[in-house]
């Protein structure tokens, strides 16, 4: 007879934060697993296609690990809650799509101004407005850079595969803490919903960088929450740590107190921009295929880069001199690399395929007088490799 009592005594398998192993996984789930592996312990979100799978997986996985999942009343609340949780020390996360991303913009500015780290996954769909909710788009990239009012620095990753959804989400949490900024992971519907092999390494091989805190105990002397170190990033104390911080979206001095003068404002906002701009070479990531002698450079990102890679490989097989620059961070933009390519004098033209009407193309056009050919679609379907190949051949 089976010993049911004995079976009941066997402790339930402890849930593991890091699902080490090889999986067949959709991008949305890989992104959620990346957040868990990075130590995310607070999620506040609101359901929206095509990002909902991220929230659903976290709702199931996070509470048994001791973290908190809260389904908020809307995206305005989701972003506010993750900033609040992060101010209390959490590694906090939300996931959304275009309409929700738009609603979050005001408080993304608050996170930038208060310098509260947080990570936002935006699974892009065809826009504007409600657009094509279940179909692909890549049209939130300028919103990710400029969406909230005012100037501030941000970091945005654009994975092209489920594996990168995992890897870049881990990185996003580290960068958010390191630079005290909101960090975006700009998936798109295709990458979010496609299933591929995802290898999750052992927990000890996953790099975790956490925000720096005060280097003296509370009460010893006053902690200046906005006095930056040499890296332009101030150490951060959390609610309950005992340092009596004050944080505000108003222009503030080193104590965090409102200081409403043009001089302080200019200094503060410049630092918010410069702490990312001057670290761009550390943050920025891209992939290159055959760029060294390329006369035609295809610049692409996300699911479109998959078509572009195929087209470039085909074209090279036909003997055409072309290469691919795939953006892994769209922000910071790999401006320096593109300038180098232009200055070397081999490049004759750029081709920018993207599922929007030319958002990335503008970035390249501002760097060069060379022709920048466009291949655009407003959204709903991937750009086909053949269409890119045809343009390369032209």
């Amino acid at each position, binding site marked *: 007879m089976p010993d049911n009592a004995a079976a009941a005594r066997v402790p339930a398998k402890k849930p593991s934060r890091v699902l080490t192993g090889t999986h067949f996984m959709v991008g949305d789930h890989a992104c959620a697993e990346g957040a868990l592996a990075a130590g995310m312990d607070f999620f506040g979100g609101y359901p929206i296609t095509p990002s909902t799978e991220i929230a659903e997986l976290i709702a199931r996985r996070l509470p048994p690990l001791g973290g908190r999942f*809260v389904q908020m009343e809307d995206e305005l*609340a989701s972003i506010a809650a993750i900033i609040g949780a992060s101010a209390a020390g959490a590694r906090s996360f939300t996931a959304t799509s275009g309409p929700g991303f738009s609603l979050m913009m005001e408080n993304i500015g608050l996170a930038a101004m208060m310098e509260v780290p947080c990570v936002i996954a935006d699974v892009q769909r065809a826009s504007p407005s409600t657009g094509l909710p279940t179909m692909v788009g890549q049209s939130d990239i300028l919103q990710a850079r400029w969406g909230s009012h005012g100037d501030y620095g941000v970091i945005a990753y654009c994975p092209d595969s489920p594996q990168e959804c995992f890897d870049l989400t881990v990185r996003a949490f580290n960068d958010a803490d390191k630079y005290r900024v909101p960090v975006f992971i700009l998936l798109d519907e295709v990458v979010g919903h496609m299933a591929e092999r995802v290898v999750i390494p052992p927990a000890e091989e996953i790099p975790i960088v956490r925000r720096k805190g005060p280097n003296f105990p509370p009460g010893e002397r006053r902690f200046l929450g906005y006095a930056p170190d040499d890296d332009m990033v101030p150490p951060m104390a959390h609610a309950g740590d005992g340092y009596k911080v004050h944080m505000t979206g108003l222009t503030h001095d080193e104590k965090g107190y409102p200081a409403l003068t043009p001089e302080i404002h200019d200094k503060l906002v410049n630092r918010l921009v410069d702490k990312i701009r001057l670290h761009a070479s550390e943050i920025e990531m891209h992939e290159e295929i055959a760029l060294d002698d390329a006369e035609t450079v295809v610049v692409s990102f996300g699911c479109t880069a998959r078509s572009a890679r195929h087209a470039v490989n085909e074209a090279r097989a036909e003997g055409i001199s072309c290469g691919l620059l795939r953006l892994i961070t769209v922000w910071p933009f790999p401006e320096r690399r593109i300038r180098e390519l232009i200055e070397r004098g081999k490049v004759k033209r750029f081709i920018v395929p993207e599922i929007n009407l030319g958002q990335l193309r503008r970035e390249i056009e501002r760097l060069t007088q060379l022709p920048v050919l466009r291949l655009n679609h407003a959204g709903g379907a991937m750009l086909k490799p053949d269409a890119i190949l045809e343009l390369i051949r032209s």
Partner: protein
Amino acid sequence: MSVTEQVIQPAANIHPIDNLLRADRLPHILCPGCGIGTVIHGYAHAIAASGLPEDQHVCVSGIGCSGRAAGYVNVDSYHTTHGRALPFALGIAVHKPELKVTVISGDGDLASIGGNHLIHAARRNVDMTVICINNFNYGMTGGQVGPTTPIGAKGTTAPDGAIEQPFNLPYLAKATGAVFVARWTILHVREFQDAVLRSMNKKGFGFIEVLAPCPTSFGKSNKIGDGLHEVEIYRQRCQIRHGATNLEEFDIDLIDDTKPIVVGNFVDVERKHFLG
């Protein structure tokens, strides 16, 4: 290394709540006769009476004159965006449930632009205290009417008087699930302080409306004169009805002076809280 400075040691004869105010931020921005200072004073006393270390108190505000409250209290304090104090505070309260989170903000911030968050925070019964300073108008932007402006009262955006039905905030808070609901005025200093303390000591969502004069904006449009005059209106017309259940009848009418302004601790019930 971060740049630091020495804490200035307070003089010997300090007031019991001096340590709870950020003295280095004084003078404050509030107008003479404004009721917000009295609310901050009451909150500071409640912190002192709570018996909990100051380090465990957190204050979150939204935007507006009342939203500046967080900037004057010497606890971890967050001055957030317009309407979003509650979800921000939820993030803190849920991530660190050991902290006593208090939201101090205005009627426009909490009941208009942040109204959706108010009803959902109450419904969830998140463990926090909300002090809603109701001065019947948008003071900081110069006296526009809002969702609490009594019918007939004037504002720069309703020069002939407000025509919309205002919120009865205690009724709204009770209906949406708050476990502690009170209404006081800044005349009722001790009762208000006591209500804040009771709410702090209770697990769940506490909502305290506190009526406060805004002589600069609301008072001027409505010929109420100075702050003292409005407090005199409270004195003449307030009736205390603890535990009253007919909150739906407690609209505030400032024009008809035969109508009482009902105040009191109305709701004090037990219900499973958000993390309970």
